[in-house]
């Protein structure tokens, strides 16, 4: 497993270079001038020329690319054009907020999703199953901004039991609504997958054999069927967690949560090239790391999965 992990980590380098290169050239062809975001509504040509020169925006493309890759090799993501703060520092400052929200959302998504899925499978074709499955349809199809607004309206404005927005210095109450909003779609999806895979497993021979031996139903489902149903759940939760780590723009905007999503959105709107590149690279790393962890977890959960060997080998 160690050799496999090291090999995967080495692959990160060319992949990141690829992501960085594509981002660099995409930003180059996009319309919009970063200097114009810095100067306000009224500016003169000399000021623009001076700032462009200072930011090396007039250098030939090849020179800019070489400098960009050189800086990257030294792990220097550059300094934001707009805030003047090193990009790495901004990402480091924002990441704990994003990580906190991502963990809370993942926790909710797993607990609610797996719980509801198992109960639905257990109570297959009963009113409870229909209710839960109906609930997941609502959960999957509910737009994030709509759910966020409804939660704020009910719990902050009408009942006054939760704060409407902000980080609140880290108090748990401030985390509840953003986490629920972010987790809802994922939880509903996890519930549907858990239900269908558990149902598939229940039909397998080994379960029938165990049942014939008199193993109680709840034990059958929790210890045997669920364990084997976990693989697709891990895939879904892993992918969602990866995207949560890149920041959740809508949830963060509605709840004024100071995470990476808003950082990236602001950077894009202001054509803050170093910040966009830094954010994209960070997202890529987050996804790669999460994927690697998911693969490693696969092997732990399911002994049939062999890392780094050819199928049938």
């Amino acid at each position, binding site marked *: 497993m160690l050799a496999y992990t090291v090999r995967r980590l080495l692959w990160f380098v060319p992949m990141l270079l690829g992501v960085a290169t594509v981002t660099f050239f995409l930003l180059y062809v996009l319309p919009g*001038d970063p200097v*114009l975001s810095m100067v306000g509504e009224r500016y003169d040509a000399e000021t623009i020329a001076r700032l462009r020169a200072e930011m090396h925006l007039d250098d030939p493309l090849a020179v800019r690319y070489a400098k960009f890759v050189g800086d990257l090799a030294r792990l220097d993501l550059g300094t934001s054009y707009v805030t003047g703060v090193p990009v790495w520092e901004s990402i480091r400052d924002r990441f704990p907020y994003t990580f906190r929200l991502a963990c809370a959302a993942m926790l909710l998504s797993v607990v609610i999703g797996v719980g509801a899925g198992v109960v639905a499978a257990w109570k297959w074709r009963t009113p409870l199953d229909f209710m839960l499955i109906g609930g997941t349809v609502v959960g999957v199809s509910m737009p994030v901004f709509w759910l966020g607004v409804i939660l704020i*309206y009910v719990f*902050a404005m009408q009942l006054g039991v939760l*704060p409407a927005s902000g980080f609140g210095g880290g108090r748990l109450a401030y985390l509840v609504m953003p986490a629920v909003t972010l987790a809802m779609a994922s939880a509903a999806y996890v519930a549907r997958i858990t239900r269908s895979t558990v149902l598939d497993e229940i039909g397998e021979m080994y379960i029938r054999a165990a049942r014939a031996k008199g193993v109680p139903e709840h034990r059958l489902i929790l210890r045997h069927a669920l364990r084997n149903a976990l693989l697709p759940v891990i895939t879904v939760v892993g992918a969602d967690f990866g995207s949560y780590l890149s920041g959740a723009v809508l949830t963060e905007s509605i709840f004024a949560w100071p995470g990476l999503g808003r950082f990236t959105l602001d950077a894009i709107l202001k054509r803050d090239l170093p910040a966009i590149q830094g954010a994209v690279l960070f997202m890529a790393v987050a996804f790669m790391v999460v994927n690697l962890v998911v693969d490693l977890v696969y092997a732990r959960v399911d002994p049939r999965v062999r890392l780094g060997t050819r199928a049938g080998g």
Partner: protein
Amino acid sequence: MTASGRRLAVAAALLAAALGGGCAREGAGERVLELALKTAPNRLDPALAVDVAEGEICALLFQGLVRYGPDGRLQPDLARTWEIDAAGTRYTFHLDARARFAGGRRVSAADVVYSFARVLSPRSASPRPWVLDRIRGAGAFGRGEAPEVEGLRAADDSTLVLELDAPFKPFLGMLALPAAMVVPRDAIGDDPAATFDGLPVGSGPWRLEAWERADYLLLAPNPYHHRAARGLDGIRLRIIPEAFTRVAEFESGALDVLEIPNAEMRRFLDDPRRADMIQSRAELRVYYIGLNNREPRLADRRVRRALNMAVDVDALIAVLAGGEAVRAAGAVPPGLPGYEARAPYPYDPERARRLLAEAGYPEGFAVEIWQRESPEGNRVLEAVQGYLRAVGVDARLVRREWSAFKEAVSAGRVDAFYLDWFADYPDAENFLYPLFHSRNAGGGGNRSFFADATVDSLIDAASGTLDDDACHALYARIDARVHEEAPWIFLYFPKTFQLVSPRVQGYRLPTLYLGADYAGVTKTR
């Protein structure tokens, strides 16, 4: 405990650490005024500040020689008194001996010279040297041809002398802008491209105590400032991008002041229980659809006037602005000297069609109207599109985000665009010169590329006129001429409404964004 049980415990502990981390940060005390910002300020260095949020906060942390009060009138700030010579080119400022930076050091005339030179320097990172470029020798200094700014010197510790190339009436007011605010040299250093290393330090009535970039800023009274607030322990400015969330925060008591969003306007204004909480004022701001005057079809004045007659602006105001805006018949907003009420273009589609036919477009034509992404812009332009279609003009709406919009519009690559302009300083010159002088075509503000020799010469004449009445009469003439020439489709001057919590006393909605200092505000629990 089994192995899997242990693993579960470790995972739970890690998750708990991730969720439970972070220490609660409380305000500076009980009486903290809770305000909201729509966008996070990027730079709190007056030389670098460009947007409203940055300007507002700079006006709390720093001082200029003069400042705007909540009523929009110019007041002494760092300068207690000043004299302007008869020619209107030599300004002598006597600094307030009480003025201290937040660290306790006295503010001297040398600090003013340092701060101005920093903005004008050829290596300056400041995007706004235009604020000070009328000082004699500013151009040569900015081009690196002179070691210092000729017309800028400290006569002694507390006397500053400024000389201009030519008299320029609005200059004194421009000295209240962020770019002309004073910073301590010892906190920044001699490199003109450098900025504060850490929290910014100024001599304003407030000092910055904490700055969590995307979350909030916490200000505390500057104990060295003679107008330091007594009724408040602090101001917390929370960054809340969504209008709905700001409303929810105000309704749940977590915000003390709320700017009412257009969509909620009627709900709040029609609620009798809120009547005592509402403050309003006409904004020094104009909304318009700029017509590219270089575009062959729109270069014809008859076409531009026809487009003005094709749109029922009164209906737009009634429906889209809740009836709470003033129809524009010129660019100078009511409330500024130089404003003159005049009859707007009538809504007359029949006449509009005749004018278009006269100009050679009996069948109309197609145009693109560009806009930056905004729900309000969408609503206005979709209505305008309908009105234009009725006179045969087929308007295609093009939406771009701000950066791409600004680049295309400033380069004159679009037919028409929806935009607004608001005052940096309360002077009609701040509307007429940037928006209509041919010298400012493009990025200078004149994005309709309007060029009219009469307007140019009248603007030049007005800016050198020292007599108030004569100057304002000229502004009114220029504005009338602009209206007649119709470089825009003139829309409206908006109004701002704020709700102020009953816990807050002494707060006044300022005329200009730079005008709030919260010195007389108190808050009860």
